[in-house]
């Protein structure tokens, strides 16, 4: 169909099995070699996903898994159509090198629509400290090269624009949301106090863009935490679908760590453009950078939420849901305690329509990835460790997939690893259920 697919057939193979799950591993720079799931890659002669510090993935409506990753100031995209058995050859997104943020939660985003178009956004670091631009490009189906990158933020003065999140509708309507420091920097210049940062958002249809378009930026809220990732999804609404644009019927919902009152770092939720609702209540008071952001997933009109907090009497990971966009919230389930050094929850509504929640813990030497499952969030299975590793790791990301959900857990310097976690939920759910507790 396009160049990526032609390259695809040249690339390779490797399937490994571990005790509880199927692991598929591949490394393009050692493409002709069978690699064990944790095989270390010794050379990075070509752009290699194995050598990237972070890997972000998405699953297209057809089940294609697409990856975005960065090596040496270039962003690359490749994909697999067979759940990781073989990977396509990477395509470079930006022809001109850029300082691309790719560590921790500051990482490229990738999305795909039902037509097969691929969309990427990333943070381009600028010379001045804490200044950066939100960049965007897309690969139209049938074309070989990504479009020339454009800058999404529309402010003239350098400012911080980071922690970008992006989603794309089936018809290619792109929604982006990010942390924006333009107001705080302006206030600082005026010598005025300013708490936290701001959230901005933009929507566009790349197919209708020409030349060097200026994308309209819309401010959403002020006073949010400056260094935690955002979480973005969309939810069914009662609005009617426009038959011409095929838009409507769903609304973008964002969750973030907000600053309430005197540095209370709890979480807020809101439909973009509408008032926020506070959705977590641990009362973590800190004048600092938590570096832990939330995860959300929509299941029809219910929004499921997971987050980290570190209040003296409520520290660890939490889960709750809301059926009315945060007006009321279920009691929070405190599912991982501080003593386990938990972090980075990844919450999805899987390909089977059920919930999966993954997170990492660390015991001083070894990382463990835990997963638990639920039908609707009222009750959860017991948690089970599905992967462990000693060494450098990226964060865990669950990927909802029509043929069974997957876990992406990248280990820089090692072959890319996807874990098949689809059978876990089917076998385990309902055997041991944990009440949602206050």
């Amino acid at each position, binding site marked *: 169909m396009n160049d990526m697919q032609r390259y695809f057939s040249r690339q390779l193979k490797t399937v490994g099995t571990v005790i509880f799950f199927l692991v598929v591993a591949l490394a393009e720079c050692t493409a002709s070699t069978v690699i064990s799931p944790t095989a270390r890659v010794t050379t990075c002669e070509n752009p290699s996903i194995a050598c990237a510090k972070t890997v972000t993935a998405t699953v297209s409506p057809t089940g294609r898994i697409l990856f975005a990753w960065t090596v040496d100031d270039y962003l690359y995209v490749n994909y697999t159509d067979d759940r990781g058995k073989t990977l396509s050859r990477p395509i470079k997104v930006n022809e001109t090198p850029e300082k691309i943020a790719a*560590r*921790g939660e500051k990482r490229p985003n990738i999305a795909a629509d039902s037509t097969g178009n691929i969309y990427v956004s990333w943070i381009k670091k600028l010379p001045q*400290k*804490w200044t950066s631009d939100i960049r965007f490009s897309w690969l139209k189906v049938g074309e070989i090269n990504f479009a020339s990158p454009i800058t999404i933020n529309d402010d003239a003065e350098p400012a911080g624009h980071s922690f970008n999140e992006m989603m794309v509708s089936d018809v290619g309507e792109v929604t982006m949301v990010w942390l924006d420091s333009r107001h705080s920097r302006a206030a600082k210049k005026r010598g005025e106090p300013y708490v936290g940062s701001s959230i901005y958002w933009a929507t566009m249809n790349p197919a209708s863009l020409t030349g060097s378009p200026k994308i309209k930026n819309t401010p959403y809220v002020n006073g949010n935490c*400056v*260094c935690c990732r955002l979480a973005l999804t969309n939810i069914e609404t009662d609005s009617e679908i426009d038959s011409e644009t095929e838009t409507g019927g769903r609304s973008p919902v964002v969750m973030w760590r907000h600053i309430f009152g005197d*540095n209370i770092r709890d979480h807020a939720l809101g439909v973009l453009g509408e008032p926020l609702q506070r959705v977590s209540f641990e009362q973590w008071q*800190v*004048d*600092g*950078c*938590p*570096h*832990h952001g939330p995860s959300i997933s929509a299941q029809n009109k219910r929004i499921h939420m997971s987050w*980290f907090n*570190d209040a003296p009497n409520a*520290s660890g990971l939490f889960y709750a849901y809301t059926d009315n966009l945060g007006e009321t919230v279920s009691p929070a389930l405190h599912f991982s305690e*501080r*003593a386990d*050094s938990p*972090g980075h929850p990844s919450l999805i509504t899987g390909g089977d329509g059920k919930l999966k929640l993954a997170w990492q813990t*660390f*015991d*001083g*030497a070894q*990382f463990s990835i835990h997963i638990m499952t639920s039908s609707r969030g009222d009750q959860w299975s017991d948690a089970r460790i599905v992967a462990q590793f000693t060494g*450098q790791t990226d964060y865990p990301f669950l990927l909802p997939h029509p043929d069974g959900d997957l876990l992406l857990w990248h280990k*820089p310097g090692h072959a890319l690893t996807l874990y098949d976690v689809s059978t876990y939920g089917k076998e385990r759910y309902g055997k041991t259920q944990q009440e949602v507790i206050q």
Partner: protein
Amino acid sequence: MRRVLQTAMPYLLLLIGSVSISSPALSTDKTTNQLTVEKVAGVFQEQNRLIMLWSVDCPPCYQELAMLERLLLSYPDLPITLISTDDDSERYEEVEEQYQRLDGNTLTAWVFADGMAPQLRYAIDKTWSGVLPRSYIVKAGSRVGHSGVLKEKEVRKLFKLPEN
């Protein structure tokens, strides 16, 4: 926090009055002050010190560092250890830039060894979630942690310095 400061104060007073800091001055060699798990115990063994952890990715940390820079102009011998949690060799230059601003003081300065942040966080304090800035008062063989920006008045009180 107030109770911690009150408890630590006698030790810190004693230290300021009588101890000469044996720690090295800041080094421009990016490889010399990398903190490894093996070195953590030694760093936290030195008693009656304020240990401050920060990152180039943490804007509030720079409020704390700016406060410290002001304070060190008048009190260059404060018994303070700085540790950058930037465990990425590509960021060491930014870390060094900040440390250069504080050069000439008797601070001890460290940066996390490449790729070792989780292990080092755990070795320092397994209950520390990674929130920054983070600080510890080390005294009498134990340490007390604090999350968030330290205010100048808190540090002045800790070291029994006159109010500004």
